C-alpha cells in the first residue's frame, strides 16, 4: 500500500502545488547594544505541498522532517541558546496548521547575537559562514550587516534539479531592523526607511541572493 501512496503523493507534487515561503528576520536594537531577535519561517502559502511532502518523509533524497522532529530540534536549539552567555528568553512557537515557525531570544550585545545566530545555523548543519554578521558601534552610533554567501552553497544550489530550485523562485527574505534612535543614513539603496525613521526594512527574493550575487550588506548610521 505504501508504494501506491508514495506514487500518489509524488504525482501530486510533480503535477500540482505551488511552492513559496517567507523568511523574516526582525532585530530590535537598544542604544546599549542589547536587544531582541525574532526569526520567522512562514510556509503557509505552500502548506498543501509541505503537508504532502511530510507524508512522504523523503523526496529526491531529502528527508522531510515530521512536526514532532521539527519541535524536537527547536526544543534543543532553544535549550542551547539559553545556556549561551548573554542570551536569554529563547523561545519558539509553531503553528502547523499554517506551517509557521518562529524563534526568538534576547541578547546583551551584538557579539553574543552573532554567536547565537552562528549556533543556530550550526545546529541545522548550515555552513556558519552563510550567516549575517552584525556590527554595532555604540560610540559611533553605527550599525552594519555583512553577508557573503559561501561559494560552496552557491554551487550546491546551482547543482539542484529544476524542480527543487523552483521552491526558491517566489521565496522572500525580509529583514527589519528597529532602533531606539532615528536613522540618519543607510548605504543600501533598496532598503526602506519607516515613517518614524527608526526602522529599516529590506525585502529581497531569495533567488537574487542565490543566483545574482545580490548584496544585502547595509551600513546604518544613527542619530
Amino acid at each position, binding site marked *: 500500500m505504501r508504494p501506491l501512496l508514495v506514487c500518489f503523493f509524488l504525482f501530486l507534487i510533480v503535477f*500540482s502545488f505551488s511552492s513559496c515561503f517567507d523568511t523574516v528576520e526582525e532585530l530590535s536594537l537598544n542604544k546599549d547594544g542589547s536587544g531582541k531577535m525574532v526569526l520567522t519561517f512562514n510556509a503557509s502559502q505552500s502548506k498543501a505541498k509541505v503537508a504532502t511532502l511530510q507524508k512522504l518523509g523523503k523526496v529526491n533524497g531529502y528527508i522531510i522532517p515530521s512536526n514532532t522532529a521539527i519541535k524536537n530540534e527547536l526544543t534543543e536549539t532553544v535549550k542551547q541558546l539559553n545556556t549561551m552567555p548573554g542570551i536569554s528568553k529563547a523561545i519558539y512557537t509553531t503553528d502547523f496548521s499554517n506551517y509557521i515557525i518562529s524563534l526568538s531570544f534576547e541578547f546583551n550585545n551584538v557579539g553574543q547575537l552573532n554567536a547565537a545566530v552562528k549556533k543556530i545555523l550550526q545546529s541545522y548543519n548550515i555552513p556558519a559562514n552563510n550567516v549575517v554578521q552584525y556590527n554595532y558601534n555604540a560610540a559611533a552610533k553605527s550599525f552594519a550587516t555583512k553577508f557573503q554567501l559561501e561559494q560552496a552553497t552557491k554551487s550546491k544550489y546551482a547543482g539542484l534539479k529544476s524542480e527543487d530550485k523552483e521552491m526558491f523562485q517566489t521565496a522572500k527574505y525580509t529583514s527589519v531592523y528597529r532602533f531606539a534612535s532615528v536613522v540618519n543614513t543607510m548605504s543600501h539603496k533598496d532598503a526602506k526607511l519607516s515613517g518614524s525613521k527608526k526602522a529599516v526594512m529590506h525585502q529581497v527574493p531569495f533567488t537574487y541572493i542565490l543566483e545574482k550575487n545580490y548584496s544585502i550588506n547595509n551600513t546604518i548610521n544613527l542619530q
Partner: protein
Amino acid sequence: MLKKYFSPFLFSFVAISGFVQAKEIPAPKQSNFVSSFNLPFIFSQLSEGKMNQSETGRQLYQALLPRDYNYDSDLDITKSGLDHTRNAWFHYVATDSVNYSLRLLPIGNMKDFAKVAQITDKTKKTAHSKGNFYQLFNNYTLFIDSTESYALLIEYTTNYNAFQDSARAARWGMPYYGDDYAVEVTEEAVPALEYPPVEATEVTESEWQSDAYRATDANEVAMVEDTDVAVEAWIDTGTNASEIDQEETGYTDDYSLEYALEQAKKDSIMTIWMYQFLDEVVTDNIGSEQLLRSLKDWEAPNKNAAVTTYMKSGFMDLFYLAKYFGLPKYAMFLNSEEHGMENWSKFDLVFDETTARIQFCTRMEDKLAATSKRIYKRKWNKRFNKYLNSDKNVAVFGLKMNTQNYLEESPNLMKKMGENIPKIDAEIALFADLFGIIVDEKAMGELISGDAVVAVTEIKEQSYESVKYNWNEETFESSEEKVMKTEMLPHILMMMTTKDEAAVDRLLQYGIKRGAYEQKEGIYYLKNKMSTYNPFQFCFTVYKGIIFVSTDNKLLSDVRLGKISGKMNKQHKKLVKKNVSMGWLKFDELAGVWDNNMNKDGQSSIRTIRINNTLKSLGTLYFNTSKIKGNKMYGAASLSLGQKKTNTMEYFFYLMDDLRQIND
C-alpha cells in the same frame, strides 16, 4: 552437487549435439535475463540519421557498446560498425561469484566497430581458436569471432565471498576463513566445469570431456579444475603475485601486503572464470533464440517489438531484479528446480500504428497457476461502475482479488518461499501454520471481498487559508493577515466490496468511541488531533455493500443520497470485465491542471510549458493484467499516442527527448 549446479536455472539450456546455428550469435547456456534488440525493426521505424539526432535514441543505442566515460564527442550511429539487419542481444548471468553482463553484437563493418571499441595495435589481445579476445578500456573484455561477423562484449562484477566455500577455496588454493563468513553457494561461476546431469542433456560424457579437453589447448584460454593448473593459469593471465610488491600496493606492513596479494589472486582467478565463461559461450555456439525456445510454452517476440526481455521465474521475479541491484540472498527465493523452465516472463516494447506499449506474458508452473487462478477468482462489482466516470475521472486503478482464497493460499506460498531460505525455513513454515490457524479466512473474505478501485475522480480548485504579513509603514511592525489561496487539488475515491456491512460498522463505531472519527449523516471523518493542516481530509461511508473512502465529502453525501450516476463507456466496461487488474491515466487532463497552478503563482516557465506540451502529447495510458489462461497471464501498459504525422516509435523518441529537456 551436479544437480545443484544445473537444475536451478530457467535457462539451463543444454547443448544439443549437431544443432549449431550458423547465423545466431553464440549465447550463454544459462541467463537470468535475456533481451533481444530488434535492430531491423528499430531502424525500419527510425532511420540511422534520425536516431543520431535523438538524444534518447543515441543514448539507448550507446548502451549496447563499450562506453568510454571520458569520451568527449557523441557516438555517430551510422559509423558504429554494427549490422542493423540482425538482432543484438543482452544476457545477464548471475552466479554466486561473478555476475556477467554480456552483449551479443552483430558486426557489419569491422573497421568502424574497431574504432568505436578503440581497438588499436596496442590493445591486449589473446588468441582463441574461434577468434580473439581483446582487453578494452574500463575493464571491458571483447571477443570477436574470426569471420568478424559478431562480437561478445562482457562486463563482470565479482564477489570475493565466493571463496568462503571450503571446497572451492581448497580447489583454487585460497585460504578458507571458516563458517562465520560462509556464503550460501547456489551456483558456481563456471558451472560447466562439472558434468551435466545425464537426464538433462543429449551430450555424452565423452563428448563433454572432449569439450573440456579442447578448452585447455595450449594456445587457448585455460579451462582448469585442479589447484595446480589453476595457479598456472592465473600466472598465464599476466597477473603474478610476486609482481605485487610493497611499493605497488602502498602497504607497509606484512599483513596488509598479504591481504593485497590475496585479493589480487582472487581477481586473477575470477578473470580466469570470466575467460572460461566466454570460452564456453563461443565453443558451444548456441544462439539466444535457440536457447529460449527451450522454455515451456515459449512465445516468440512480437513482430513490432523493438526490445523483448525474457526473465526467469515468472512474475515473482521481482526478486531477481532485487538481485540485479545487489540483494542476492532475497533473490534466491524461487531459485529452485521447480521454478526452472516452467516459470518465465516475457516483456515486449511494442510500437504499432497508434500505440506504444509494454506488453508482458508470464508463464507459471501448474501449481502456481492454480494458486494464482484461485487468488484472482473474483468478479467485478458492477455497482462500482455507477460511481466511475470515463470522461471525468483522471486516473483509475481497479483490482479483482479474492481475499478469502488469497489468505487460504498464503501459508503455502510462504512455505514455498521458505524452502529456499534454509537458515529460517523452519521458522517461516511455523509462522505460515500459525497464520493459517489464527486468521479466519472466510470472515476476512466477507469483510473485504478483494475487488477494489481507486480513482482520481477529478482535479478541481480548492481553497485554503494562508498567512501573509502586513507591515506598518510607520514602525515596520508586522501584523498577520489571513488570505485565501486556491490550488488545483485532486479528489480521490476508493471503493471496496464488503459482504459484512455490520462488521465494518462495528469497526467504525469503535473508532468513534476511541475518538478517532466523528460521524455526520452517515459519513465518518478522521479527527485531526494534531491541529495540522491536511489537504486530504479523508472521510468514509458504507453504502449498499461498498466501503467508500474519499477526500470529497460531497461526493460521499451524493452517494448516500443516490444522486450519482456513473458514466462508463464500453471500452472501460470491457477493460474492467476482462482483466484482474486494470486502469487508465489521462496525461492530457493533467496538462491544464499544471498550467493553472503554475500560472496562478506566476511560476510559469519554460519548464512548465515543456511539461504541459509533453503531457498533452502523451494522451491516455491504459494498463491491464488478464485473467490466467492455461498457465499464462498477459498484460500491457499502453500509451495511445493517436497521431499520424509520424510512426509511434519516432514520435515516442521525440517525446522522450522533450522530457529530457524539462530539467535543463
